[in-house]
């Protein structure tokens, strides 16, 4: 992993980057925050290579696959992530404890169904830490749930032929024991 040299301090006079979502909302974010989104960083680096002479400090980056709602949440998460990292630069254990605490609080304000939306956004933006966190959160939300609950959760339908699923279920009947009520 590369050394994080960007300053997470919001009062610093670093460049702002403007992100435009699919529903035409515009977000102005610190460069340090935007650079955690690898997709944005890639775009930004390509632009800079193409326009070496342009002295603009504000860049507009269109994100046609991300809506404003998940992006706002991801920006908040990212800011906090950088802040915790900066506060515990020399203590990895403390950082993990702070991060865990923040993530627990974070999940109290998020509906489980919102998590899929966040996973899609984090995946598209290629924001690895957030993707890992949301995948863990979804896993613990569905861990003890029924197959039917999981289908509803992800908006999926069974595509097994009639009888096929029952036959499979019979072989692994034990894995259906002790499942939570939906």
């Amino acid at each position, binding site marked *: 992993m590369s050394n994080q040299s960007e300053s997470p301090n919001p009062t610093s006079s670093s460049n702002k980057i403007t992100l435009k979502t699919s529903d035409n909302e515009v977000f102005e974010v610190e460069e340090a925050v935007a650079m955690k989104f690898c997709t944005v960083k890639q775009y930004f680096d390509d632009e800079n290579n193409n*326009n070496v002479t342009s002295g603009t400090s504000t860049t507009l980056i*269109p994100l046609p696959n991300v809506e404003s709602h998940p992006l706002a949440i991801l920006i908040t998460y990212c800011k906090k992530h950088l802040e915790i990292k900066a506060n515990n630069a020399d203590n990895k254990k403390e950082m993990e404890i702070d991060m865990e605490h923040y993530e627990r609080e974070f999940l109290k304000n998020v509906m489980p169904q919102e998590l899929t939306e966040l996973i899609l956004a984090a995946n598209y933006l290629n924001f690895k830490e957030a993707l890992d966190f949301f995948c863990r959160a979804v*896993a613990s939300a569905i861990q003890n749930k029924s197959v039917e609950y999981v289908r509803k959760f992800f908006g999926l339908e*069974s595509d097994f032929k009639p009888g096929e699923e029952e036959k499979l279920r019979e072989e692994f009947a*034990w894995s259906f024991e002790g499942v939570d009520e939906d």
Partner: protein
Amino acid sequence: MGERMVPMMSQHHHLSDQMVYDILSRLPVKSIIRFRYVSKSWNSIVTDPYFKFNQAKSLSNNSHNGYVIYTKYPQKYIPCLQYPQHEVEDLCTVVCNSDNTLTEVSRIEIPFLYESIVGFCNGLFILASPSPMNHSSQYIYLWNPIIRKFMRVASIRGQPSTSSVTLGFAYHPRKNDFKILRLVCFKNEGKLLPAKAEAEVYTLSTASWRKFSISVDSFSGSTICRISESPSLFFNGALHSIAFSIDYKFILSFDVDDERFREIRLPQNYLVGVSLRNEWLAILKGSLALIVIGDDQIDLSSVCHIWVMTEYGVAKSWTKKCVPMDKHSKFLSCTIDGELLIKRYDLKVRIVSFDPESLKEEVLGIPDPRDVIYTTNFVESLVLLDQLSNESYSLG
């Protein structure tokens, strides 16, 4: 600035297989098995060989002192019967808490008859029993209790006159594979001819045995005539056993990756002054160790010598610690904290944990233990998912 677009996602509102994979890989095995039935694509993600082999995860608990896995003698066990009723035994796994109390993790019925539990490695158990058809052959069971699957492997049929048979079980990380090592020494019936030692290696991914004679790189002894029958110790990518040639004793190591045998020297003259009762190889705080239990030849007290090879493979690095030990003791394993787990045969069979630093010992709450093994990390895995529940393979 040009309105260059960032590339589009293929499907807008559905998670890709990769994302489903990322979520599933964070679940316990039981949930993964259940969610195969969500849809055909989820089923194919779970049954993909790449997913299965990456799905070996530890039960998260950081402050424990390893896991003891044991069976008990059945309640109606009558000691004069040579073979107790195996059918009624459950395999019980407990986590050892730091204060030497135990917490049960699982209790599962063993779905076949067996004689001994050889070991546990990366989610798979290996058990053995003599073949009912042919006594020179063995049945070896690989069993994944989490997904309730097992397979039976018949060993290669050997000559009837074996002097020792040693089993070892190892995980091969470079190939994500498992290997069973079976070392067989034959009796010297023709008197003047040297005894013969052979190795048989079973590879799980190819479901096949290979047989070859044991040749040790730059070996300083003569032909191997016997190998200790305790299960080989898997450590540092190799299986280790104590082996004997006519006048020489050493540690025979089998590298799981390059499949070559090497010699590791035992401490020099380590039995001077001790009448040996038994000895075992172990891993003590990350080093190869030799545990010797015997009687001091001068004061006749029962002692335990703990030899630690601080630098792996370097014979000069053996260091000794001497502690008192009850004579009716069978060494099982060293715990993460460096205690010795001992099976003690008093009026009752008990499992005790002995701290060689403080010399304190504590009886663990396992009454009437039969088979007892220890593992630092109890992992779940999907290995053997394709097996029918009673499928067997044989080659002989």
